[in-house]
């Protein structure tokens, strides 16, 4: 954006170096994507660890969704870095006082030691069967995925199941760590009063769970519609019920943060309050709070309290799910962008002008949000989440 235009839109006083925003929409995408991962995984672990049988139909879909999004998660960061070719330095010389550096290891741990292992253990039987029955390049792919092993005896599958359960148990705090850490990256910045609160990791985590559960809910409905199979309503109702609970907690936490700020009214309050009522009004009041939280909460509450037919509930869940995702995205936007719109002198405001076809513009953001669905489609082809109707030719 033209420097003169940018400066002319500054209101009040900002330290000269603050006028141009440092973190763009790509940094908004990043917590949104990792949040979806954590939420989808928590939903999957509901069945595996907490024995919530009803959500079994979404188990594998949730895992694949988590993987698809986790693979895309580093990409907005790489696009944002001034020197992405140096990003490996975070693994070579991580600064242990930096939440960002330690997060690199949390990410790697979660991807390799939790998600990939869990998916592998759950799918191993199918992978080996495919390796036996496929030909050509696909056969090679499946054999590679099976690590060359051909053993799917009942004993080996039983071992897989027990190890898998252990991995999921370890995976739950790992998922909490994955997204809680992102919250801590913001929450530990004492220079920024919009970010600096011990509640940030907790708020991020619960909003992550909300977004992840909503995503799997929508995907399950979409995939069933594409495959023309019946939706298991008991499953859908249970997922929606957990979405409602998570949302209630998330809403309470954010409300608490708001009330606390208003009550204590510290030096930053007037500046932040003004910002919310003006520059952030659309994205915070309208989009995040009303459209993205109160309306879906109301719809979900309605489904819990009033007896509605299957079709009505499906429509309700679909609308609530979409609005939820919009609302959680808006929340990330308001944290990241909102936190940079006001001056640390508390005397002024700047603007964020998002480019379109620039390195950190809207176009790459859209493409990065589409990419996980493409990957997910591939994963679904390669590792179908649903059991095949007929047993395979060569049982164990």
């Amino acid at each position: 954006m033209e420097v003169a235009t940018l400066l002319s839109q500054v209101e009040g006083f900002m330290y000269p170096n603050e006028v141009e925003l440092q973190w763009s929409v790509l940094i908004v995408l990043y917590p949104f994507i990792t949040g979806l991962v954590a939420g989808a995984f928590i939903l999957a672990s509901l069945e595996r660890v907490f024995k919530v049988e009803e959500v079994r139909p979404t188990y594998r879909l949730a895992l694949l969704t988590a993987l698809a999004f986790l693979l895309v998660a580093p990409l907005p960061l790489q696009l944002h870095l001034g020197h992405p070719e140096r990003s490996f330095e975070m693994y070579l010389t991580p600064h242990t006082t930096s939440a960002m550096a330690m997060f690199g290891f949390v990410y790697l741990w979660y991807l390799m030691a939790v998600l990939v292992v869990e998916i592998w253990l759950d799918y191993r039987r199918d992978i080996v069967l495919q390796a036996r029955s496929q030909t050509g390049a696909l056969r090679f792919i499946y054999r590679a995925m099976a690590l060359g092993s051909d053993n799917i005896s009942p004993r080996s599958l039983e071992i897989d199941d027990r190890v898998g359960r252990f991995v999921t148990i370890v995976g739950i705090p790992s998922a909490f760590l994955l997204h809680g850490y992102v919250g801590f990256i913001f929450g530990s910045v004492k220079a920024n009063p919009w970010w600096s609160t011990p509640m940030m990791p907790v708020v991020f985590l619960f909003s992550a769970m909300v977004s992840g559960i909503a995503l799997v809910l929508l995907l399950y409905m979409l995939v069933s519609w594409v495959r023309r199979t019946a939706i298991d309503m008991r499953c859908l109702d249970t997922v929606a019920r957990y979405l409602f609970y998570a949302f209630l907690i998330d809403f309470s936490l954010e409300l608490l943060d708001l009330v606390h700020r208003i009550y204590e009214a510290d030096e930053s309050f007037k500046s932040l309050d003004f910002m919310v009522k003006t520059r952030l009004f659309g994205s915070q009041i309208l989009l995040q709070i009303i459209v993205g939280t109160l309306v879906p909460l109301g719809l979900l509450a309605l489904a819990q309290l009033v007896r509605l037919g299957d079709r009505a509930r499906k429509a309700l869940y679909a609308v609530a799910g979409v609005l939820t995702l919009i609302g959680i995205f808006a929340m990330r936007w308001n944290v990241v962008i909102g936190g940079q719109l006001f001056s640390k002198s508390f005397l002024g405001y700047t603007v964020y002008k998002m480019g379109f076809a620039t390195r950190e513009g809207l176009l790459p953001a859209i493409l990065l949000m589409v990419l996980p669905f493409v990957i997910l489609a591939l994963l679904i082809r390669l590792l179908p989440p649903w059991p095949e109707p007929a047993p395979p030719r060569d049982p164990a």
Partner: protein
Amino acid sequence: MSHRFKDFEHLLRMAAMFAVGLGLFAVARGLLVPEDFGVWGHYRAGALDDNRQRPLVHAGAAACGECHDDVAASRAGGGHETIRCEACHGPLARHAAEPSDQAPALPDGGTICLRCHLPAMAKPAGFSQVEPDDHAGGEPCDVCHAAHAPRLEGT
């Protein structure tokens, strides 16, 4: 392969893959981390030298005095003795290094004074501020004041 391991042999293969990965990481780390990293703290010690190597743009008043030793005497008691040369004459490291090469243009004696002495509310009250129109009928400053020793006789 031993019968005992048959049923979790695949897990051993996976563990082996992880071990190989960790090994490769250790090797990469040994090769890629700069040697002087961590000497003084969590940074590359060579960065201290990098920061030291910048070229000078301002010479510093001591360098000016090496050749222009007469100026110091002429400034004594004139009111501007504590101001260093480059405050008005601009960056002069290149000239100090090679005096013949670049004879720097002298600042305009009629306008440079205003940079400091033009009146403004935020300037400290004790600092001499002069509105040229009221003070000298719009005459350039150097008509009456020598820039190096601006204090006039009897003031």
